[in-house]
């Protein structure tokens, strides 16, 4: 199913939707939003691409293998939750620092903390899993397997 209108629209919509997901991601600290929702928005954007073109070109667009993406996301989330331990703080405590702050003028600068990286991990994880589901469903099924549940062959032993 090739649709020129959908494909053209997708070319313009994809960057906008991804930008929107970044906005939602960043505002999530104090307002509705955050890694999970933003990840879903990004996944919706890529799903649109997969529908307009095909699963293979979306995989090419994503560059990184989805399994790796899930792994990176989970690792990042765990690492940012565990990082406070290195500073003698409780597991999952927020560690914060600020860039370019000026105490004299009371300018807080740009605050960066472990919750941001935790959310980024969630974001990648959600994009990875959602896209893995969508792309697997869009791709033609592999050879169906009607054999028994337990088969032992190849390097199983």
């Amino acid at each position, binding site marked *: 199913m090739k649709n020129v209108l959908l494909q053209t629209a997708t070319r313009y919509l994809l960057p906008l939707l991804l930008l929107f997901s970044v906005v939602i991601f960043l505002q999530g600290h104090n307002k509705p939003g955050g890694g999970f929702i933003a990840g879903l928005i990004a996944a919706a954007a890529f799903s649109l691409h997969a529908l307009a073109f095909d699963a293979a070109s979306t995989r090419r667009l994503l560059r990184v*293998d989805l*399994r*790796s993406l*899930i*792994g*990176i996301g*989970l*690792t990042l989330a*765990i690492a940012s939750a*565990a990082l406070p*331990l290195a500073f*003698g*703080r*409780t*597991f*999952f*405590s*927020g560690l*914060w620092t600020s860039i370019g702050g000026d105490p004299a003028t009371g300018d807080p600068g740009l605050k960066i903390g472990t919750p941001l990286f935790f959310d980024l991990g969630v974001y990648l994880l959600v994009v990875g899993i959602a896209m893995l589901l969508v792309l697997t469903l869009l791709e033609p099924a592999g050879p*169906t*397997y*009607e*054999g*028994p*549940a*337990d*088969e*032992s*062959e*190849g*390097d*199983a*032993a």
Partner: protein
Amino acid sequence: MDGPPGNANLLPVLPVLIPLIAAALSLLAWRSLAIQRGLGLAGAVGLLASAVTLLVEVERGPILVLQVGAWPAPFGISFVVDRFGAVMTVLAGVVGVATFVFSMGSVDARRQRLLYHPLLCVLLAGVCGAFLTGDLFNLYVWFEVLLMSSFALLALGGGVLQVEGAIKYVTLNLLSSALFLIATGLVYGALGTLNMADIALKVRAGDSPEAVVAVSVLLMTAFGIKAAAFPLFFWLPASYHTPPFAVSAIFAGLLTKVGVYALVRSFTLMFVAESEFTHAILLVAAGLTMAVGVLGAASQREFRKVLSFHIVSQIGYMIMGLALFTPLAIAGTIFYVIHHIVVKANLFFIAGIADRLRGTSSLVHAGRTSLYAKAPFVSALFVVAAFSLAGMPPLSGFFAKFVLLKAGVEAKSWTIVATAAAVGLLTLFSMTKIWAEAFWKAPDPADAPIDRTRSPKPPARGMIGTCTALAAITVLIGIFAGPVFEFSQRAAEQLLDGEQYIRAVLGEQALARLETGGETSGSLRIADGTTAEIGGPR
């Protein structure tokens, strides 16, 4: 109340963290099956080691608590480890390690490549999270974590049969999750808290609205579905016989027990205000679960279907102990769970070996030679597990049933005692049927199996090793029934002493409120006090 800062109090989350790290790393190493296998096994071994450490710690000292992110209870999420939670985590570790070892020889490489190992790790993390969390909503989250991975494992790489089983499983479990979530929302609406200790405090202080009893029954329904209790158990026998044997075994060993755990936690710690009413429902459900499960098993002619119906039946025994609600009965439930997890997982593993050796799981079409003659050792392993399940002395199941029956007699609940005893006999009948059909008979060669799609082949060494180790644990529980029972009693006392749990999570001041009578804003003020004490998370 916050315990020592830093690494020292990381222990309560380690059984969750270790398998999650293993899952994350093995996802990154998706190209190499060998690395995934190694990481998975390492994750399960790490989980077991941390769980054993936890058990030793809580056996020696008080309940361990970790306030995640240093947010004070009841606002943050508390991880709480008492004896019951710790022993459940140890059992999860044992079954986890066994599953990884057994999978190496039995699950086909094609399936293993479909992220089999990371999924198992996430499943284990979810199970342990459910056992260790002290927050009702967090419990829901861990349920979802383990359910999502179990959905994937159940359907993984399967054909029509597996997908059909998975659909039934997913549908009923989603229904149960929805009920759980609704009930959680209602609890929050009624009590303004989701921290289990805080809920327990408010219910004990007597300032919980009547509606909480109704909500607790809703939760009972949700957990009852997960535990496969009567009347909503039919998803279990419809799905557990379809995935690979290793997956069946870990499901059979652990997943329904998470439901039982949640029931026990809810109806010993939190919802005890109307225990005569709620526990009466549980008692009826327990009796019917036992009876219907064992009768269902009697009509089945497939190895794993018989075993699946027996899971249902055994769940009845566990709920019976909870329903009787005496210290002895709760101890019986804990003993039963300890015994059951090991035996049931082992029976499914042995079913896998028998299937390998016979080339079929049907109990009608047996192999050409008697399995007993061909593989006497495997047959002996089956006898240990099956007789233990049926409650033959001196194996672990006998003591588990004995304690429950004794508790029933003491509580003068004659109906449930009679049911439990009769169901025990019928269990023996079922196990004898498997023994006769699958292990003993050498039928007429003309009676060739119709569904034989593969030729029999010898099991891998790891498979036999796994079953031997689990059978040894069963025998050891039988031999050391005394110490195990004493531990169960201590765990039961801890469960029934809700104040101990509340003190561990919310601190001494919380209980002072309890004595001066209920104040709705009590725990809020406590929380403010602790905030000043610990300092906010930033």
